[in-house]
């Protein structure tokens, strides 16, 4: 296996060729905040929280969706990056309706966690207050579009791990939203296997078990990673 070496915040790191910048950053023992990224799922670079500065590159790069290459000089924690990260989190809160006080994920929410990480005590952007709906047509689960940050983890876990491809992203810009099937009520989509993987990996309270009340959501965000590894290493094969 060929190895490449690069510098993360001035620290030399060696990672296998083909690693992402995020993997290299983690190999250096540095924690970058992420929302759309989940081990076991393909990277999309949607949330822009893992942005890094690479010497000689004028724009900021999402570490999860950029490949590490020989000799890169990477900065992960500059004032500019900190400012953009906080701005991104403030925009997440301002563009949706995140009333944390009575959310099913209150206290177990990755959006709240990154808000704390970036030191966000309020949003400098005016709230948009979009009029969004709740889909409670599924017998077991519900989808609250008010909480959704469009990380697309549900879309990817359903496609890449469960192979049912129930979820997709529809519309553009401010109207962008997650849809089930061909924009049907979730409960009417035959392809859904009721496996709940999308609910397990959702970083917020957008997808939840119907029985869950305020602060009762207990997701299993490592499930996708376990399933991917078990499959790759043939842990379920009959011997």
């Amino acid at each position, binding site marked *: 296996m060929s190895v490449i070496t690069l510098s993360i915040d001035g620290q030399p790191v060696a990672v296998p060729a083909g690693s992402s910048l995020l993997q290299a950053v983690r190999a250096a023992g540095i924690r970058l905040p992420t929302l759309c990224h989940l081990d076991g799922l393909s990277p999309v670079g949607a949330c822009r929280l893992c942005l890094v500065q690479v010497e000689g590159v004028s724009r900021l790069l999402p570490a999860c969706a950029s490949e590490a290459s020989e000799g890169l000089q990477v900065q992960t924690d500059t004032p500019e990056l900190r400012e953009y990260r906080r701005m991104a989190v403030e925009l997440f*809160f301002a563009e949706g*309706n*995140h*009333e*944390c*006080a*009575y*959310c099913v994920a*209150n*206290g177990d929410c990755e959006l*709240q*966690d990154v*808000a*704390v990480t970036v*030191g*966000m*005590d*309020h*949003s400098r952007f*005016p*709230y*948009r*207050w*979009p*009029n*969004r709906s709740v889909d409670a047509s599924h017998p077991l689960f519900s989808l609250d579009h*008010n909480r959704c940050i469009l990380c697309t983890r549900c879309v990817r876990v359903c496609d890449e791990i469960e192979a049912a491809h129930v979820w997709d992203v529809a519309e553009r810009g401010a109207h962008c939203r997650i849809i089930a099937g061909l924009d049907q009520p979730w409960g009417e989509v035959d392809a859904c296997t009721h496996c709940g993987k999308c609910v397990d990996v959702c970083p917020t309270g957008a997808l939840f078990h119907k029985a869950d009340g305020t*602060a009762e959501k207990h997701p299993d965000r490592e499930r996708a990673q376990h399933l991917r590894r078990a499959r790759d290493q043939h842990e379920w094969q009959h011997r």
Partner: protein
Amino acid sequence: MSFLDLDEFLFDLAEQVEIVFSPVASDIKTYPEGVDLCLVEGAVANADNLELALQVRRRTAVVVSFGDCAVTANVPGLRNLITPGGRDSAMAALQRSYLELADSQAQIPVAPGVVPELLPRVLPLHEVIPVDVYLPGCPPSAARIRACLEPMLRGERPRLEGPEMLRFG
């Protein structure tokens, strides 16, 4: 109520401060001049809230946005969801509650000078006046309130960091 959870610290606090205006802890109706610190809770939902917020800002050195309703508009802000972008949510809310859901004598209450007029949108405090310190939480825990107040009693600005101090909800 969360403020009362400060327990015996309230005695220490009482020795160091004079409460000059409070809807629950004093019976003074006019917000006085030259106030050092004001903890403002709740979102700005009606004309009275707005007027008081502006008055508080003019007459106060340090304004603290106290709790999620003040910081994010939170539950009162849900009224904004009735209409796209929160525009004219006041009339939509009044119509729904006083006309559509009325059992009898359906009418929207109008009493200028008595019933304050609702603002079109419910707003967090900092969208109305500049705020100096933000204290999130629904409600902020007593420990968080104390961690915010203690530095200010010494004349310093609090630096709230980490999940114990910053988390919403």
